[in-house]
């Protein structure tokens, strides 16, 4: 029996954000925007969804009089990401054996 793929992670932009954050301690909103080539509006919506799911922490502050948003993956996010990758591998393994 296959595990269902996590619907929060099984979307292109949200998965891209999580894949970026899994490798770093924390990242600026502009860094994520630059690496994903997403629009600011779309990125904001997806970041908010990940935050609501408890997968990332979002910290808003001012740096040199400019607003700065930093994102950081949570332990819950790491666990969900690992489970998602494991489920993907299972699907792909079965695809190979067929």
């Amino acid at each position, binding site marked *: 029996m296959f595990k269902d*793929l996590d619907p929060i992670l*099984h*979307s*292109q*932009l*949200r*998965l*891209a954000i999580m*894949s*970026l954050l*899994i*490798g*770093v*301690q*924390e*990242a*600026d909103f*502009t*860094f994520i925007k*630059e*690496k*994903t*080539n*997403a629009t600011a509006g*779309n990125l904001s919506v*997806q970041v908010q969804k990940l935050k609501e799911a408890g997968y990332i922490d979002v910290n808003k502050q001012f*740096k*040199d009089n400019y607003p700065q948003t930093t994102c950081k993956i949570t332990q819950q996010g790491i666990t969900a990401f690992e489970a998602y*990758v494991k489920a*993907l591998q299972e*699907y*792909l393994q079965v*695809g190979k054996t067929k």
Partner: protein
Amino acid sequence: MEDKQLNEQESLQLITEMIQKAKGGFHESGSSAILWGSAVGIAGIVSFIESYWNFYIGFDIWFILFAAIIPQIFISIKENKNKKAISREERNMDAVWMVYALSIIAVTFYTNIMPWASERLASGEGTQYWKRTVATGAVERMRLFVPSASSVYLIIYAIPTLTVGIARRFKPMLIGGFVCYALFFASCFTSFTWDILFNGIGGICNWLIPGLILRKRFLKQKAGNV
């Protein structure tokens, strides 16, 4: 990038691509290494020239290392301003350099304080040291430098524990490391008898207590997995 649904293959490709992109975003400017390499290099070579040709430039050249702290502050501020993401590797490297800086301060303190501390301990024991030049027969007070291996060991004990403590944000190791540095500073003013006691306390705070805490967590996790 759109917010579209992906198949399994595309998901795996995207994960790999993004992890590679995150990795590629970090570049060392090399400014700090160039700064400190130049300062230590110049100071060492000038010191050698002074000693070999027996002359003095009028000030201690090693003071340029203190002057190098000022541009270092500017470099750090500038680099932090431009930083858009912090990698885990970078955080670990920061821990290594932080502990290195602390240890350099401790060793500098040690080499400067030991002559004074040695004199103080000798006078406490009611002894004085004199040296006599065989050729001229001249006698003068000797400047003592009694090395304290136990003090140096305390710095070495602290290095790995504090580095791991900072990198993993594990408080017992952080505390253990700082206790070792504190005991090192105290040991510069005490006799050998106290220094070996400090080594014992250092070992307990640095390894035994964090080790017991880690063991407790390990056993708890193991019991949970059964």
